[in-house]
């Protein structure tokens, strides 16, 4: 039952990434609960998805690649977790960006700590205040 050095290194790195992801997930959830409005909460969502979901999925992949106790399904689980991680890395920012754009253009959430908003001025000047249509 003595695992070799490479497998042990993979498992230690995977465990560190999973625990790191748990801490980041808690930080992201606290930010999601405590931040004042939608456009500030997008920042907490970034922490919660990339550091709280992408990093532990890579950790699961490394852990499964070094864990001989999984038997026949070892590489299935390592590869599946890797595919999930890269899908999430591509899809989470695209989804958040589409949601933020829609929330801005439909005025569903207000831009609260605002110093200057060039897009709003541009739309008002060029398109005659017609901001709520795509």
């Amino acid at each position, binding site marked *: 039952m003595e695992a070799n050095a490479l497998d042990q290194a993979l*498992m230690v790195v995977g465990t560190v990434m999973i625990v790191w992801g*748990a801490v980041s997930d808690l930080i992201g*959830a606290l930010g999601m609960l405590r931040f004042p409005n*939608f456009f500030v909460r997008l920042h907490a969502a970034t922490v919660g998805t990339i550091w709280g979901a992408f990093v532990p999925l890579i950790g699961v992949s490394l*852990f499964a690649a070094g864990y001989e106790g999984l038997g026949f399904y070892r590489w299935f689980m390592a590869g599946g977790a890797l595919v999930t991680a890269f899908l999430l890395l591509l899809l989470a920012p695209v*989804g958040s960006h*589409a949601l933020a*754009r829609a929330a801005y253009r439909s005025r569903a959430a207000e831009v609260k700590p605002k110093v200057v908003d060039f897009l709003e001025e541009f739309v008002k000047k060029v398109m005659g205040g017609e901001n709520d249509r795509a």
Partner: protein
Amino acid sequence: MDENVLLNMILYALPVYLLAFLLYVVRAVKGPTIPDMVLAVDALSYDLAAFLAILAVVFKIPILIPVAIVLALWIYALDIYVAKYLESKEMGE
């Protein structure tokens, strides 16, 4: 290092994930606007996909890995649907 020690460390990390899920659910229920709720459900589900993958490795249940992939893809579909509805007030044909 023995693999049982590492598995125990991962087991101690699981309640932290559950606490984070609880905070996301609070925001998803009381979020004042629609984008707030969708953003909270979004982050909750991506983290749930990671949690499923961790459970699959710790308890040796390989069928949970495809479940995590499908969950990530459906939550992306939710984002796009809600964004499209907010922008043009219709779901698309």
